């Protein structure tokens, strides 16, 4: 019915425009609707701005969506073969759950708008998202759907950080239940304090693309889970013994890292939130450059450090170095000069090389290094904003880090504990030993290879 009405309307408008040319005597009546149609499609500054902003959100958005593939491949490569199908399942599931929850409740909780707060500047409104018809979506500076889409992929990214740390010894559905709450409530509430114009934003806290809001949040949730879940069976022995469990595929891990690097241009670049002016376009370009240089620096620092410390370059820590560099620059990818991005990203690489073994010393089993990469580098990236952005100050930055940290860690810890003591988080020792592919998914990643069931 709407289609019919719309087509009828278009037909009438066309007829009127034709009438304008054929019968000038009727021009007076036909001019008003035709002028309105021209107004919406003319290349006015406002229209150009709208279109380019929308384009930035959509392109940045699908680049960040692609990071879900990056996480999936990175994690698949760093777990043992018997757990690869489980890791793939977790990653595609959490991306999808993030989308559903951010529609149902997350977006409006995070962006309630002026006067929309349930608790002012702290808790937004509880409402699903609806989208206006395209013809009516002309009020703002960008298409409504494009903003939701761009924000949704950030929410999903936060969820994917948690799955890497807890790999190889967590049951599927308890993990996904945690993700439902993380993406529907925990992430949006702390996000509203800053990007939703809540109390942290009022204080002057600065987190351009989410070193704290996305990466540290994921890292805190992962840390809480790792503490309650415990290490993989056999990972730690008596007298401080540590037993490495090398990942199944270095090419997948490397590919995943490159995919994340690519997606990060959308993650940071899209966070400029505008593209329709010369200054905004130039800003997005500058962000791309700083983002890339921070990652490159993280790689090289990690390579040199592992060569010096261990006598050989460690590829997995080199990959972590790239990501830590990216996380470090994410809080402020616009303001720095290139050399500053190189320094900031390089320190991210240092953080990775020293905190990965540190976690093992503390018997916190983080399979992929997500806590060093996202939590520790996220904190560093947030604090160092004060160096390159004169509007930020380190005390406010630290306050934001602490506030988000306390909220996310405590709420995650409580939720993980609740799940642990009700439905349980871990598979049995036998299930864990045989691999989660068999016990949780019933499908092996590599049935014909290694000890797969299709090999004798």
């Amino acid at each position, binding site marked *: 019915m709407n289609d019919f009405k719309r087509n009828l309307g278009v037909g009438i408008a066309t007829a009127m425009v034709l009438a304008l040319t054929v019968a000038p005597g009727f021009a007076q009546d036909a001019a008003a609707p035709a002028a309105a149609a021209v107004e919406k499609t003319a290349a006015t500054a406002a229209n150009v701005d709208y279109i380019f902003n929308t384009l930035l959100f959509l392109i940045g958005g699908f680049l960040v969506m692609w990071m879900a593939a990056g996480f999936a491949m990175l994690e698949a490569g760093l777990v043992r073969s018997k757990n690869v199908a489980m890791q793939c399942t977790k990653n595609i599931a959490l991306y999808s759950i993030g989308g559903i929850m951010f529609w149902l409740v997350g977006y409006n909780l995070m962006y309630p708008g002026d006067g929309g707060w349930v608790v002012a500047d702290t808790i937004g409104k509880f409402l699903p998202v609806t989208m206006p018809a395209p013809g009516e979506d002309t009020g703002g500076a960008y298409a409504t759907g494009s903003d939701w889409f761009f924000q949704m992929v950030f929410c999903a990214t936060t969820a994917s950080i948690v799955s890497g740390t807890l790999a190889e010894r967590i049951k599927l559905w308890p993990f996904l239940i945690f993700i439902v709450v993380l993406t529907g409530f925990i992430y949006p509430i702390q996000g509203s304090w800053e990007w939703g114009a809540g109390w942290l934003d009022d204080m002057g806290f600065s987190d351009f693309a989410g070193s704290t809001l996305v990466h540290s949040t994921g890292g805190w949730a992962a840390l809480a889970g790792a503490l309650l879940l415990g290490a993989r069976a056999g990972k730690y022995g008596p007298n401080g013994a*540590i*037993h*490495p469990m*090398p990942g199944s595929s270095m090419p997948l891990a490397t590919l995943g890292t490159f995919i994340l690097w690519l997606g990060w241009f959308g993650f940071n670049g899209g966070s400029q939130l505008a593209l329709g002016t010369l200054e905004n376009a130039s800003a997005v370009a500058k962000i791309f450059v700083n983002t890339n240089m921070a990652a490159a620096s993280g790689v090289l620092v990690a390579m040199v450090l592992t060569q010096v410390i*261990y*006598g*050989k370059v*460690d590829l*997995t*820590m080199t990959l972590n170095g790239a990501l830590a560099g990216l996380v470090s620059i994410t809080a402020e990818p616009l303001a720095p000069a290139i050399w500053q991005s190189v320094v900031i990203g390089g320190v991210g690489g240092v953080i990775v090389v020293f905190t*990965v*073994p540190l976690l*093992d010393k503390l018997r916190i089993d983080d399979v992929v*290094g997500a806590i060093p990469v996202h939590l520790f580098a996220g904190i560093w990236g947030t604090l160092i904003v004060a160096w390159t952005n004169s509007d930020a100050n380190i005390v406010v930055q630290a306050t934001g880090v602490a506030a988000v940290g306390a909220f996310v860690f405590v709420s995650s810890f409580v939720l993980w504990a609740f799940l642990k003591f009700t439905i349980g988080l871990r598979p049995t020792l036998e299930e864990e030993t045989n691999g989660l592919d068999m016990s949780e998914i019933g499908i092996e990643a590599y049935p014909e290879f290694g000890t797969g069931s299709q090999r004798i």
Partner: protein
Amino acid sequence: MKLLTAIIKPFKLEEVRTALTDLGLEGMTVTEVKGYGRQKGHTEIYRGAEYAVSFLPKIKIEIVVPSAQVDKALEVVQSAARTGQIGDGKIFVSPIERTIRVRTGETDETAL
């Protein structure tokens, strides 16, 4: 008939196979195995933690040989598999009671 079980370094497989074929001995069974003798393993480091690689990849060749050819076969296998470095492997000889060719039913030395 005797069973020759030869544990050799993996890259020596083609050389040993050729040497046996030149003797007129066709047919063998090859398995990928791991093991060590006097050749010690080494340690590697993964993400800052050490692990021992004690077992080294080897190839096991099993070939059943007519008794008259055993000495010659041992000689060519040893010569082909040898590098002079520790870890070259060993050859074991054990007796075989009976042999049957599945396709034709031929037995013992006519089945080899």
